[in-house]
């Protein structure tokens, strides 16, 4: 159907995934829950650091487009880190570990992790 809502006949035989709707396989990682929470995510984040930093930069660019003064991003960096102290174990320490491994400000890591709550309105 070439006008919205772009429905189509039910697909069949799409598996194994291939063709234009398949963009790639997903890599496996292990998170060792026996490690201290601040260390658990280190190998994964180290591996995905560039992609994570790039995604956060995109979000900051969008935020700055809405609030050109940069105050919104400044608020995230300054105000959100305090939330980490209030989170139940082990989440606060894990977020600190993600921030340390990625080099991102803690407030931005918190923002990424509360996206769901923010966008339910």
């Amino acid at each position, binding site marked *: 159907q070439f006008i919205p809502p772009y429905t189509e006949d039910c697909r069949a035989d799409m598996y194994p995934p291939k063709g234009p*709707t398949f963009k790639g396989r*997903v*890599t496996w990682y292990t*998170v060792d829950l026996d490690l201290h929470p601040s260390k658990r995510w280190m190998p994964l984040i180290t591996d995905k650091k560039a992609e994570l930093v790039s995604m956060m930069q995109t979000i900051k660019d*969008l935020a700055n487009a809405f609030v050109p003064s940069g105050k919104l991003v400044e608020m995230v960096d300054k105000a959100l880190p305090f939330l980490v102290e209030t989170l139940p174990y082990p989440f606060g320490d894990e977020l600190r570990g993600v921030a340390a491994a990625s080099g991102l400000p803690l407030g931005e890591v918190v923002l990424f992790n509360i996206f769901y709550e*923010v966008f*339910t*309105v």
Partner: protein
Amino acid sequence: CTSIVAEDPKGNLFHGRNLDFGLFMGWDMKNRSWIVAEQLKPLVVNVDFRRNNQTVFKSTTFAGYIGMLTGIKPNVFTLTMNERFSLDGGYIGILEWILGQRKGMWMSFLTRSVLENATSYEVAKTRLAQTELLAPAYFILGGNQTGQGCIITRSRLLSLDILEIDLKLGRWYVLETNYDHWKAPLFLDDRRTPGMTCMNKTTQTNITLKTMYSVLSTKPVLNKLTTYTTLMDVSTGNLESYIRDCPNPCMPW
């Protein structure tokens, strides 16, 4: 998002989901795609959470996101979460949290906690239905025995409804998008009707992870917000995920 739990005639339970995210977060006119959704795709990872060198649960998530939206506790249950939009949304829960009222639980942290600690489908269902939350949500839960599949519709405080697989009523699957199942979806965003049409065409006899992947590949169930598709089989503990693309013409949501 679209999540499905289905039971085949032998009592095997299959769970699939499309994770859609990034609505209104920057539209790329040139590539006709959502900027944030595209940026999330390289961050999709499968994670095997282990304790004492043994798998506790497996999940598909985004690197840097420590809560869970999709996961399997092998041989026990499968779980996905879909966004439920409401004026009484998560921003109120966040404000309450900031002001020191911290009875509720963050959504994806609850999902992770259930995957990590719940020991059965029933325990998981009770925790997902009864824990106070910061935001409304849909939890889609599958178990390891016949009839164990449900959609839990949650407000921040209450479980509003639990819709379960009921073979006696001919309900061999449950399918949830982002609307209460007892209400019609927004006419501009009806993924439920095409999803259910394709499930009904597939039939219970033919449902497998492979045929479920085809359902999740049909537009507009597959759309410009779809970042990944995950398929889970509780009995084998198998979780497989694929990064998705929706070639034009394709609905933006």
